[in-house]
């Protein structure tokens, strides 16, 4: 694949029919619509929606919102992994990694199909609820990962996030690893409320996510072999991503705090504090 083609793909916007409509960018009117369906617009949150479905299994809007939020991430996955297939042909990576990304793209297509049909089974459709990940600006966690690798501006951030070691550590291992909780929990929710399709769809997705995490871990190991600096970059990217997500949910682990203790001390000291890591 030519360099020009990879460059062209990089500049192509993400598209879908219906068009992406990121939840973080919706206007007041749509927030009111969400509030009417879910009690409050801020309830459009996957963890909370699972509990809402558990408490009121007869409310079909709760199920539609939950599945919409998950399927939106699957569309984002198709976009992200198919871009890696094109872009990584310009990086010194094993050919098998490109093939693995192609396989993963098709897995995400299958997940999107399953989610879309599950949604239609509830009488809903893609685009009825806003998108959770797809089409959204780069997350705070991704920006933090790139800054943690020395990025000074958005161009450098984007370049660092394309680096296979960083990208695999963040997307395949940290993000897909965390998605295992989501899929296991949603499949279990389907079992609890007697929704056989929900149970089956997310059990299927869970098995694929295990493979995706394994793919990421295998290739991060391969790309870092005999290269402690690369391994340190991979660990740091993973820690930064997980740490940001945990901080946003207010549940940061003591190991993450320990990992960044030195930097926290330096930062606190620079701000005139006592430097004690908390």
């Amino acid at each position, binding site marked *: 694949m030519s360099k020009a083609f990879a460059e062209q793909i990089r500049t192509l916007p993400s598209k879908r029919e219906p068009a992406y409509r990121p939840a973080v960018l919706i206007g007041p009117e749509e927030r009111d619509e969400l509030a*009417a*369906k*879910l*009690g*409050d617009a801020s*309830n459009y949150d996957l*963890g*909370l929606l699972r*509990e*809402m479905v*558990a*408490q*009121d299994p007869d*409310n079909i*809007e709760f199920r539609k919102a939950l599945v919409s939020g998950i399927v939106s991430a699957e569309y984002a996955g198709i976009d992200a992994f198919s871009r890696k297939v094109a872009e990584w042909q310009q990086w010194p990576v094993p050919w098998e990694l490109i093939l693995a990304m192609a396989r993963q793209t098709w897995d995400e297509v299958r997940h999107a199909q399953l989610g879309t049909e599950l949604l239609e089974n509830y009488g809903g459709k893609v685009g009825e609820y806003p998108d959770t990940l797809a089409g959204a600006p780069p997350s705070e966690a991704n920006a933090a990962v790139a800054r943690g690798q020395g990025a000074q501006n958005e161009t450098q951030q984007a370049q660092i996030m394309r680096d296979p070691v960083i990208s695999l550590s963040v997307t395949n*291992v*940290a993000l*897909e*690893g*965390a998605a*295992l*909780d989501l899929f296991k929990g949603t499949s279990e929710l389907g079992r609890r409320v007697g929704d056989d399709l929900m149970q089956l769809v997310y059990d299927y997705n869970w098995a694929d996510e*295990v493979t995706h*995490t*394994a793919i990421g*871990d*295998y290739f*991060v*190991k391969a790309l*870092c072999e005999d290269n402690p600096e690369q*391994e340190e970059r*991979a*660990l740091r990217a*993973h*820690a930064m991503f*997980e740490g940001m997500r945990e901080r946003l949910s207010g*549940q940061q*682990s*003591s*190991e*993450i705090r*320990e*990992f960044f203790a030195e930097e926290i001390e330096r930062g606190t000291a620079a701000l005139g504090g006592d430097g004690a890591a908390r």
Partner: protein
Amino acid sequence: MAVRILLEPCINCGLCRRACPTETIRFFTTGHRTHVVEPAGCIDCDICIPICPEKCIVPDETYVHDPVELAAAKERAKAWAAKQNATRKRIRERAAAAVAAVR
């Protein structure tokens, strides 16, 4: 007894680490990309064993606990459980409010 992680099949998904009530499964501070159990903090709760998708967490029958360390680890687990319960309660209450609001 404690548990240990077989490094070869481990895919570093982190499920065990995030589920461990004593945070005794380490990853970021091991110096390598490997999940390792610090046995002194393991209370043999066995939460990690069934959730591992690769079935690579096994009992470490050679490890003998220091009773003081074990008691301290159990205290950490109690604090962890209290925090988890508080979080779950908050989510349940928020969900109940949402259900009530749309009925």
